[in-house]
C-alpha cells in the first residue's frame, strides 16, 4: 500500500476513535507519549476489515480503563454480570470501526469496506501482532485512563 494512503487510513481511524470517545463516553483522549500499560490484566479488541481495505484495528487498555468505559456507556449503572464489560468494549470498538469505514468510503470512493465482528482478548502479558501487515500504534491518554490503537492496513 502507498505510504500516503496508509497515513490517510491511520488518520481517519484516529479521527473515528477520538470522535466516538467524545460522543459516547464524553472523554477527550489526547495523543501522548509511548507508555507501557502497568496493570497486569489487559483487554484488547480486534476488528478485521476486508473489501477495498484489508487490515485490522486493535484497541488495547488495561481492565480498569475498560471497566470505566463500560460503566460510562451503561450510564453509570453497575453490571449484574462483570463480563458485560467485554460486551460493551466490543460495541465501543465496533462503533469506532464503523465510523472509520464510513470515513474511508467517503475518502476513497469505490469499493465496499466490511468489518468483521469484534473479538476480545483479556489476559496477562498479552502480545498481539498481525504478521505481514504494516501498522502504526497511537497512544492516547484521557480522564478515563490510557489506551493505544494499533492500526494495520495492507
Amino acid at each position, binding site marked *: 500500500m502507498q505510504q500516503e494512503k496508509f497515513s490517510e487510513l491511520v488518520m481517519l481511524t484516529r479521527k473515528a476513535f477520538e470522535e466516538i470517545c467524545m460522543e459516547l463516553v464524553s472523554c477527550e483522549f489526547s495523543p501522548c507519549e509511548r507508555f507501557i500499560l502497568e496493570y497486569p490484566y489487559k483487554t484488547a479488541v480486534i*476488528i478485521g476489515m476486508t473489501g477495498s481495505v484489508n487490515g485490522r484495528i486493535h484497541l488495547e487498555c488495561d481492565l480498569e480503563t475498560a471497566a470505566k468505559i463500560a460503566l460510562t456507556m451503561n450510564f453509570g449503572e453497575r453490571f449484574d454480570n462483570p463480563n458485560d464489560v467485554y460486551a460493551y468494549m466490543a460495541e465501543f470498538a465496533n462503533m469506532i470501526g464503523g465510523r472509520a469505514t464510513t470515513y474511508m468510503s467517503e475518502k476513497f470512493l469505490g469499493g465496499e469496506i466490511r468489518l468483521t465482528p469484534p*473479538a476480545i482478548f483479556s489476559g496477562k502479558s498479552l502480545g498481539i501482532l*498481525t504478521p505481514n501487515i504494516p501498522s502504526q500504534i497511537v497512544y492516547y491518554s484521557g480522564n478515563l485512563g490510557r489506551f493505544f490503537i494499533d492500526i494495520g492496513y495492507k
Partner: protein
Amino acid sequence: MTTEISLKEPLIQACSELLPKFGLKYSFVEEISEKTLNSAESINLLVGLNHGIQGNIILGLTSQAALRIVAGIIGEDEVFTLDNQGRNALSDFMTMIARKAVSKLEISTAVDISPPTLITGDTVFSMISKIPSQKLSFNLENTTFSISYCIE
C-alpha cells in the same frame, strides 16, 4: 426461511486435507458448545469472516502444538522457539485452514477473510461473539489444539 450454517464439518475437512501434508498426525476429539467468554490457549490465531457470513475463527494452540505445526510447515524435525518465521508460518496456516473451510460451505456469496492476528499471553480469555461459540478439540501427537468458531 433461514438455514443454519455450521463450520464444523468444513473445518474438520480442512484439517484432514492440510495437516497430513505437513506430516502432522492428528485426530478430531469432539465439538462442544461454549459460553460467550472462554478461556483460551497461550497462542491463538484469529481471523474474522464477513460478506457471505459474519463471524470469527480462533485456532488455539499450546506452545508445544504451535512449535510442532511450525516444524511441519517449514520442514524441520523440531523447532524450539516461535520466531518471526514461525509466526508467519502459523499465520499462513491459519489463512489456509480458514480458506479451505469456507470454500466448502454451500453458500452463493464469497466469504472475505481478514488478515490473521496472533494473540499470545498468560491466563487468556476470549470472547469472539455476543452469542455462544462452538469449539472443536483435536489431539496432535502428544498435545492438543482447538478451533473455536462463531457465525452470527
